[in-house]
C-alpha cells in the first residue's frame, strides 16, 4: 500500500475544508477507497494528519454504514431491499447471492473478491431493483445481471466508472 499517496490525498482533503473535523468523514472515504475498508494503518494516518485521536475517529466512523472495520470483498454489493425494490424482487437477489457466492451477508468469499449486504433505499425507485457495487449503481437488476456482473468481475473486466 502506498502510504505516501494516501497521506497526500488526506492532506489535500484537509486543505479543502475550513476545519479538520469537517474533513474527517472525507478523509475516511479516502481510506475506504484505498483499502476497501477502514484499515488501522489508514485510521492512524488520518489521526496524524487531522490531529484527531484514533479513538474519536473510530467512535465517529462506527456510526456510518459505509465505514467498516473489517475487510470487504474487492467487489462489495449493496442490495437495496426497501419497499419499492422489495416489490420488484430484491430479496430474490439476496437469496441468489447467498447461493451463488456461498456466503452470508457481511462475509467475504475465500478469494477475497466478493461480499454483500442488505441495504436501505439508494434512490433508484424509478428503475428497481437497484444495487450498488462499491460506489457504482446498477439498476433494473435480475439474477442474470448478478451472474453477469460476477463473471465479469472474476475476469477483471468490470468497469465501475460508468454512471449517469
Amino acid at each position, binding site marked *: 500500500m502506498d502510504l505516501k499517496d494516501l497521506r497526500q490525498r488526506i492532506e489535500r482533503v484537509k486543505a479543502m475544508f*475550513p476545519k479538520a473535523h469537517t474533513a474527517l*468523514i*472525507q478523509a475516511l472515504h479516502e481510506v475506504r477507497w484505498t483499502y476497501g475498508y477502514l484499515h488501522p494503518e489508514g485510521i492512524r494516518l488520518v489521526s496524524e494528519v487531522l490531529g484527531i485521536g484514533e479513538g474519536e475517529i473510530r467512535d465517529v466512523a462506527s456510526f456510518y454504514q459505509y465505514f467498516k472495520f473489517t475487510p470487504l470483498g474487492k467487489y462489495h454489493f449493496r442490495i437495496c431491499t426497501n419497499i419499492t425494490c422489495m416489490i420488484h424482487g430484491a430479496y430474490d437477489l439476496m437469496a441468489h447471492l447467498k447461493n451463488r457466492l456461498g456466503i452470508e451477508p457481511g462475509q467475504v468469499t475465500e478469494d477475497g473478491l466478493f461480499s454483500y449486504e442488505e441495504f*436501505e433505499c439508494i434512490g*433508484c425507485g424509478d*428503475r428497481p431493483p437497484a444495487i450498488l457495487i462499491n460506489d457504482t449503481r446498477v439498476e433494473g437488476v435480475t439474477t442474470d445481471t448478478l451472474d453477469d456482473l460476477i463473471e465479469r468481475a472474476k475476469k477483471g473486466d468490470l468497469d465501475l466508472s460508468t454512471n449517469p
Partner: protein
Amino acid sequence: MTLDLKDFQPVLLRNQGKPEARSLQAYLEQGGYQALRKALFEMSEDDIIQEVMASGLRGRGGAGFPTGLKWSFVPRESVRPKYIVVNFDEGEPGTFKDRDIVRFDPHLVIEGTLIAARAVLSEESFIYVRAEYYAEYQILKKAVEEAYAQGYLGKNILGSHFRHEMHVFLGAGAYICGEETALLESLEGKQGQPRLRPPYPAVAGLYSCPTIVNNVETLANVPFIIQHGSQWFRQYGTEQSPGTKIFSVSGSVKRPGNYEFPMGSLTLRQLLEEVAGGPLEGRKWIAAFPGGLSAPILTPDEWDIPLDFESLAQAKTMLGSGAVIALDDSMPVVTYARRMIQFFAHESCGKCTPCREGTPWLLQILQKLERGEGTRHDLELLQRVTHGIRGQTLCPLGDSAAAVLQSFMNKFPEAFERLVQPTTVATS
C-alpha cells in the same frame, strides 16, 4: 378534478433526460445566473428575502417550512460567519427527485445557493451529498469547479465584491443525516445525532454560527423566483402551497419516475393511475405512501385527494418529500409494515431511548407475527410501544415509525387480527 395539464411545462425538470444540459455553458444559454446578477446588482438583502417570502415557497425536504421566513431568522448583523448548507442527503425511501435536479441542472442548485448566501450575507456553503449518490457527487464537484473557473464562485463574484466559497461534502450512509441538525453534526465530524432545539440552526447551526439548511429542490426554485418574481411563481399551485412539486413515483406502478406538477393540480389517484399507468400487471393496489416511508399510508378509497401540503395534512398524513410508493396485493400487509419498521429500526440513531429501544422492539413483534407465532397480547403491545414512542423523541424519526405503523394497523385491522387467530383457536 380533471387532469388538464397539457400546457404545463416542467420548471425544475426542464432538462430531464438531457445530460448535455448540465454544463455551465448550456446553463448560461438557458438564461442561467441572470437571477444571481439581479440579486447581486439590483436587490438588497431585504428585497431578496421579501421576494422569497412573498412567493410562499415552502421547504421541499419534507417539513414544508416557509423558506423566506427561515432566511429572515438569520441575524445578519452578527459578526460571526454565516453558512448555507444544502441538504442533498436524499434518504427518504422512494425519493429520487433531488438526484435528477442535480443530474440535469447542477448549476440551478449552485445559483439558488448563491442567492440564499447573498440574502443572508454568507461567505461559505456546504452541499451535503448522500454517499449513495456518488455519481451526482462527481457531477456537482465538476459544476462547482466550472463555477469557480468562470467567476461565479470565489472572490469578487461577477465584479460585485461579494465572495463565496462552496464545498461539496460526501456523507457516509446514515438516513438520519437528512435531519438538519444531525446533518450539521455530521459536517462537524461527529456521529449524526439530532440536536435539541432551540437554538435553531438559523441562530446557532454549523460551528454554532447562524446557518440555513435548505433542501436541493427548495433552492432550485429560488433562481426562478428571483428572476421572474413571486407572482410568476404563484401562478402554479395553491394559496398555501405555491409552486410546482416533483413527485417520485415508485412501487407497484407501470411507469415509475419523477413527475413535476403544480402543487394541488392533481390527485393521488390521478398521479398513480393516469400518470404512472396503474398497478403492475395482474396486481391490485392496496395502499400508498403519499410522501415517503415517513408518511402514514392511504388506502385506494382515500386517493381522491389533491397533492399539496394542506390537503395531505388534513388526511392525517403528509406530502413529505413527494415520494409516492404504491403497494399491491403481491405481499402480505404485515410484510410491508415489517419492512417499513425494519428501516426505522436500522436508521434510529440511538440518541433517544424510546426510539432506540422501541423501533427494534416493534420489529421483533412484527417478525413474530409474520412467522405466525403472534398472540393477541402482541397486537396490544404494538399499540403500547407506538404510543410510547410518539412525542417522546428529539427528531421526527421515531414519531414517523410509530405513526406509519399505526396507519397500517388502523387501515388493515383484519390483516393483523388474522395472524393471531391460530393462538386464539388453540386456547379455546
